[in-house]
């Protein structure tokens, strides 16, 4: 009963936070510097691992598909399989997971520490709404950055798959035919589908991590607990949301 109530409370306060952040959206122009800082931070911290991971995920996909195609014939479908899996599923989920680990944890740690060391209280006595300054710019930044990161993950993943497909002996198909099936059987809708997912994941991850950070109570040891809670909650939400968004979009 108690965990159930806590989940409901969490959902309630997160929705409230979203509404308040939306209310401060008009202040974006004068907080443009903060917004750019957050975009840069999200890009800078996640881009290198997004690139490395998506390259290898693309490669492994090609390898596994090649293995399956050994007995089944048409190897060109490897391109389509890598293309679709990356765009529709793996890129958005992977980017969101990395976002939770690198950005979400940092947000939770920063806001929790500001809360514990009374910086949030200080903002309130200064009549500066913490949500306006700390949450809204981050949410806008993640909405702007998620598609960028996801498209990069798509491209790098496809490219990784193409390389493996060419240089693995039992596959050995040329990039031209690898990409030809992708062009033929995939359209922009498939990529778009992944971008919508990525937006949903990214937005919720940042919102939840902000909320957990801002609701930290107690002493410094709670900062660590808040970070753990933020990352675990984010991961659960990504996977649960993945199912429902996929269902809604199909």
């Amino acid at each position, binding site marked *: 009963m108690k965990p159930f109530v806590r989940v409901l409370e969490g959902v309630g306060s997160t929705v409230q936070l979203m509404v308040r952040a939306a209310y401060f959206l008009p202040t974006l122009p*004068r907080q443009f510097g903060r917004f750019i800082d957050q975009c840069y931070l999200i890009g800078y911290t996640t881009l290198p691992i997004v690139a490395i991971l998506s390259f290898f995920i693309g490669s492994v996909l090609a390898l596994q598909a090649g293995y399956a195609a050994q007995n089944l014939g048409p190897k060109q479908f490897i391109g389509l399989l890598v293309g679709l899996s990356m765009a529709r599923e793996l890129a958005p989920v992977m980017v969101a997971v990395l976002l939770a680990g690198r950005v979400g944890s940092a947000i939770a740690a*920063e806001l929790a*520490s*500001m809360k514990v*060391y*009374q*910086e949030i*209280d*200080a903002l*309130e*006595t*200064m*009549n*500066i709404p913490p949500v306006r*300054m700390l949450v809204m710019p981050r949410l806008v930044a993640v909405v702007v950055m998620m598609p960028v990161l996801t498209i990069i993950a798509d491209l790098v993943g496809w490219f990784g798959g193409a390389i493996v497909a060419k240089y693995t002996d039992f596959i050995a198909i040329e990039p031209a035919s690898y990409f030809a099936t992708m062009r033929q059987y995939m359209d922009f809708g498939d990529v778009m589908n992944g971008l919508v997912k990525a937006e949903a994941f990214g937005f919720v991850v940042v919102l939840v991590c902000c909320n957990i950070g801002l609701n930290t109570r107690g002493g410094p040891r709670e900062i660590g607990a808040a970070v753990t809670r933020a990352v675990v909650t984010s991961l659960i939400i990504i996977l649960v949301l993945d199912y429902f968004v996929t269902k809604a979009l199909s």
Partner: protein
Amino acid sequence: MSESTHTTNPFSAVQTPAVGVKIQHLSKSFGTVEVLKDVSFEVQPGEIFVLMGPSGSGKSVLLKHIVGLELPTSGQVLVDGKDAAAEETREQVRMALVFQAGALFNSLSVYDNLALYPREHRVGKESEIREKVMRALQILSLDNAAAKFPSELSGGMRKRVAIARALVMEPQLMLYDEPTSELDPVMSATIAEIIATLKEEYHVTSIVVSHDRDLTLAIGERVGILMGGKLLFLGNGAELRAPKDPKIADFLSPKIDVKNPRFRQLET
């Protein structure tokens, strides 16, 4: 327009009426623990009120009620006649709370800590803000600290930066939470002088939470003592020197008795 009932702005000649604070039958509980029990007193516009009391007696909680960070369980706090619990009061009355640990923004330099309030409230151009911030730093002899980060400051400097940051808000009401705790005697004296100067020159109403008897007698115009959530003493410096209640006398100048130590008395 008598001078002492108006707050002079340290950055311009503008005067705004000094504000008073009324605490009326304030009680506060956290869960089942009653931290403040029916506390009532008044702080006159432009005076320095010192609130004393042992650790855990509820002093910080009381200050938080004045700035609206905590809401009363029962009773009321009025600042300039307006309910401190209402959001609008914070917009109508400029109040600054100097937190016990400073609560400086750790990710911002000292300069940006001070500039945050005027920037966020868009009072003036960046050049005017700069002038104001440098003036506040100068008032607290912090001229060289502008580019430093809070983690690079000594305890005394942190406290002074916290005061400077409060000053930039051009407050009508200043609340200090143990501004001299953890400071050496000279730095404590300096902070006490700063508080008195701000009151003397700018007529800021001040409420100072402190354990420091010397500071209290030196700058406190009126004094309240909070013990176990109750206000057990309310009076001026002269009355504080000769307290009638033995509990108050013991709090102000506790005798060290090695033969009959306190921690043994507690057991019985």
